[in-house]
């Protein structure tokens, strides 16, 4: 990289770019992560005890998760719910991406993409609050359903996981739609026509032709949405109920309410491991490499 840069800009500039990049990676990414790992491996001590005989490396903070039934349940629920959010987002985004890439005229596609993006000009917290209003017990959605006679009494959307799911699918849909759109867009239209011509119906054409082609895009979208969902704080905090707590909320509590940074660091690191694990699993499942995902 240095050689290419210096051929282009001369070696002083190249040196500066590489140094800045290196500093960024080391100081902003690597060191904080290492520090977090270091924190997670030490007990939570009073300032006076730090450096004392009790200040030694231990995995006790990690064991906590496995001994605490509630935390463990929330951890597992976070995984499961994030998978569900990912699948839901995929189910919603795939037809949309197909429409944008292959069905819509350029004008319709542009309009549709604009409509998708406009809400994202507003802050995520505010957007999530607007769902809070929409889904409220006496909110517009219940009013509409009541008026249409579809339900007899208002539904408590926000009491279980449903509100969190809806909020997350909405918040992360772009991260699924765009990789899918890119992947489907690059499919030769004649492939689809050939499949139809050979007798394939809509479902089979998608299953055998479109989806295999769009696999890297699907993998990318799924990885992004899963990581965002598993690491989300605002959505479950605002749209969740006490019964639908997310693992990130536990981590937050350790840091800012429990004052136990060491414990919080251990939990945060476990979440990171989980995300990396999910990513490798999806990549293996879809038989795609890091290079395909970065595209």
């Amino acid at each position: 990289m240095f050689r290419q840069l210096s051929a282009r800009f001369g070696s002083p500039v190249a040196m500066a770019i590489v140094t800045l990049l290196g500093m960024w990676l080391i100081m902003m990414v690597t060191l904080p992560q290492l520090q977090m790992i270091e924190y997670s491996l030490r007990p939570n001590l009073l300032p006076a005890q730090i450096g004392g005989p009790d200040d030694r490396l231990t995995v006790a903070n990690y064991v906590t998760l496995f001994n605490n039934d509630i935390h463990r349940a929330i951890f597992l629920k976070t995984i499961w719910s994030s998978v569900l959010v990912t699948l839901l987002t995929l189910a919603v985004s795939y037809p949309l991406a197909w429409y944008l890439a292959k069905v819509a005229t350029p004008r319709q596609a542009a309009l549709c993409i604009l409509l998708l993006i406009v809400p994202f000009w507003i802050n995520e917290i505010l957007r999530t609050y607007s769902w809070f209003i929409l889904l409220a017990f006496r909110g517009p959605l219940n009013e509409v359903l009541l008026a249409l006679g579809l339900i007899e009494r208002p539904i408590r959307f926000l009491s279980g996981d449903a509100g969190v799911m809806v909020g997350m699918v909405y918040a992360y849909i772009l991260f699924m739609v765009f990789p899918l759109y890119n992947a489907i867009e690059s499919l030769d239209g004649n492939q689809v026509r050939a499949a139809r011509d050979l007798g394939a119906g809509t479902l089979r054409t998608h299953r055998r032709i479109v989806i295999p082609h769009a696999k890297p895009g699907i993998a990318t979208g799924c990885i992004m949405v899963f990581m965002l969902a598993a690491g989300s704080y605002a959505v479950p905090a605002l749209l969740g109920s006490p019964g639908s707590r997310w693992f990130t909320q536990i981590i937050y509590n350790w840091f800012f309410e429990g004052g136990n940074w060491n414990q919080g660091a251990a939990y945060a690191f476990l979440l990171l491991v989980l995300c990396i694990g999910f990513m490798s699993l999806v990549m293996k499942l879809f038989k795609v490499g890091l290079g395909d995902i970065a595209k």
Partner: protein
Amino acid sequence: MDGSVSLDQVVMRFGDFTAIERSSLEIHSGEFFSFLGPSGCGKTTLLNMVSGFLTPSEGQILIGGEPMAGVPVNRRPTAMIFQNLALFPLMSVYENIEFGLEVRGVNKRARREVSERLLSLVALEGSGDKQVAELSGGQKQRIAIARALAVEPRVLLLDEPLSALDLKLRQHMRAELKAIQRKTGITFIYITHDQGEALTMSDRVAVMSSGRIQQVADPMTLYRTPQTGFVAAFVGENNRLEVTVAERDGERLTLDAGRLGRLQGSAVPGASDGLKAGDSAALFIRPEQLRLLGQGSSGPALEAEVEAVHFEGAWLMLETRLVASAERLRLQLSGEQARGAAGRLTQGERVRLGYDPAEAVVLPNDGSPVVDEETGEVKEAANVPAA
């Protein structure tokens, strides 16, 4: 198995644009039928209507006597070979060929039997496990044919499938396609802008221009007795001279060619029936119909000046300009004439040209599009009579 295709009063419009003017046509079962025309003439639109990708604005299409209105693409007894072939790149050769059978729920064993048989038909035994990317251009071509034949279509639709191949392979594949068509007895509908392909392979050809079918005939008839000026110019090479009819004696016409004086030509039965003295017309003389005349010979002759001599191996192509009218004429000399002319003729030399009036056709100046001799582009007709 009836593989006949009928177009019954078919019209296709896209908004204000009429891609296909009202057309009717019968394609017989087991025929190798070509649609020939320049790009944008509507031939691909026609093909897409037969395959079901497009629905005609008016009229109907029948395959084997059954109306196809409302029958979706995947239920039609047709199979298409796409210009870019559209093989499935993520599947093996076997999977490609067997796709249509898989769709129809044929079991794996029966599928494999069919694909082995088809692979041997297209002379690619043992390639079934290969990936599409490993195949050469000609091999891909054959796999595309095998994939289409696997579904046992009554009609095979081919959309310029040879255009991506190089010349030698293209000529080889022409013969192969024709052989496959004979062996299978399936109706082939072939779309091309290459008149060589259409003439060599087809039983009959429909020449199209600007959304109209200009003429439907076997290749020989098309070449010898074109019904419109467009067909005369587009099928094979032709020299066109603007003339006015001076006298008519049966099929034999005497023409007033302005500064060139009087010329002779033959009326085409049908198209030229209405031609009478005083009508504006076009005289077509093919390059191979023109001969160099000796100095002492008598009879009608055109005085011309040689502009360029191209040696093409088997024949000699001569570009000349008429002395009287400055119009260009191309001559194709072969055999004795070519041997005599080669080396002797140079640029600027005067020559006398003759032709047999019985072979040169005269067609009315009907306003059909003409082909630009220099570029091969299709233009709207210049209705300017000879000055």
